[in-house]
């Protein structure tokens, strides 16, 4: 049972980081687990279970993100009462800028960032999990990180007063 929970935890953690929303992540994890069950007989190589499960999870995340666009214009922010993870996260501004920058990315790009930088998967492993060429993974990662860097750099600019919509 501990392994069961650990694997479910792993899928949920990835979904949560891709979608940046608790409800959406729970729904995506649920859908992914059901898809795993439904399609399990079609899995030819049991050794590929982990990569295959990520592919189903990312599909579910994509579906949830698409549904969320019809439900609400904005995703909810993650809870902010958790302790900061080390000194690398310089400020609340960094966090907000990252949050905004990340949300501007597509789910495809987010998935690459999360699998590589959170799950520590190599680029070939990410390519295998997502079923896309390694070059595409490299390209998406580059684009995504450039966007996030730009978001962080925006923090260094003089503050611009926001205009109420």
């Amino acid at each position: 049972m501990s392994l069961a929970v650990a694997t479910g935890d792993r899928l949920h953690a990835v979904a949560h980081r891709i979608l940046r929303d608790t409800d959406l992540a729970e729904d995506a994890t649920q859908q992914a687990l059901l898809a795993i069950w439904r399609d399990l007989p079609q899995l030819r190589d049991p050794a590929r279970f982990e990569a295959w499960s990520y592919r189903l999870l990312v599909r579910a995340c994509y579906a949830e993100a698409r549904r969320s666009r019809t439900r609400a214009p904005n995703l909810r922010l993650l809870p902010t009462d958790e302790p900061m993870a080390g000194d690398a996260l310089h400020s609340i501004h960094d966090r907000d800028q990252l949050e905004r920058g990340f949300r501007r990315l597509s789910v495809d790009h987010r998935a690459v960032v999360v699998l590589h930088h959170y799950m520590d998967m190599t680029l070939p492993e990410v390519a295998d999990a997502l079923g896309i060429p390694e070059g595409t993974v490299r390209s998406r990662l580059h684009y995504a990180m450039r966007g996030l860097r730009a978001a962080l750099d925006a923090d260094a600019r003089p503050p611009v007063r926001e205009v109420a919509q």
Partner: protein
Amino acid sequence: MSNERDTTRIVRSWLEEGADRIPDRVLDVVEARLHATPQRRAGWLARRFSIMNRTTVRYGLGAAAIIFVLVLGSRFLPTSNTGGPQPTPTPTPEPTPAPLTGTDRNLAAGTYRAGDPFLFPLEATVPAGFRGHIGGPYYVDLYPDSRAGGLFFIVFDEVSVDPCDASKGMTTVPATGERGAKTAADLVTALSEMPGIEVSDVSDVTVSGYTGTSLTITAPDSFAGCNLGPDGYVLWRLPLRANFAMTEGQVYRLWVLDVVGPRLQQDQRLVIMLDETGSNETQRAELRAVFDSIRILPAS
């Protein structure tokens, strides 16, 4: 300006924040829905069987199944009282069901779908001469135009403390399932313990892939001496405060099912109530046929 290394470090640190435990309620929902989720046939297996060693195939599938059990835990194995995976609705080549609406109206013969706002999407096929509507999140009815009985789909948590004494009010059915889940068994117990109501023909059932209990409840032959409220001999109350009452000696057949709602937090019971009061043999056969056609659809 952030350099590449700084950005990577900050992003990695930022990604460490967030949920890292799957909530139990997600596992509960998955567990409940597995019963209604048929597994897809392994097409590759048939194609490759001739070139693969039988043992290899068996090992591969077995290993995959074991992995999934490890992933989800033994909680998802079929329980002994169900006798294996639950039967699931068989797809039919019928045309797209017509939507049941919020307006009580005559229905042409055919299949109807009760969707939003009712909590549990379902379909049923009615013959000519039926009426029906969605009364809200907690109520759907299908009944003959003659009003001789009907089928009712209802969701409720409150039952009368004593139907014969309205002054005692209502009580909420305890939720004794895992982590406070509302179970069909809780409701069956509450109905069985309700004073004055005779409960019979209790049995385990599966309706459209969902397990539960069926039972017959019979009201007393006389309400003489009862302290009834304006709604009469009330058994239960829907969340929007609609009371359900019985007449003297009336009989309802109930199917109380464990059904998971469209949202994770809405673990609920669905009650299907068959009322054959005043119906003749033909009408009873029609009602039974409507019941047999019920398909409870996965919530989306």
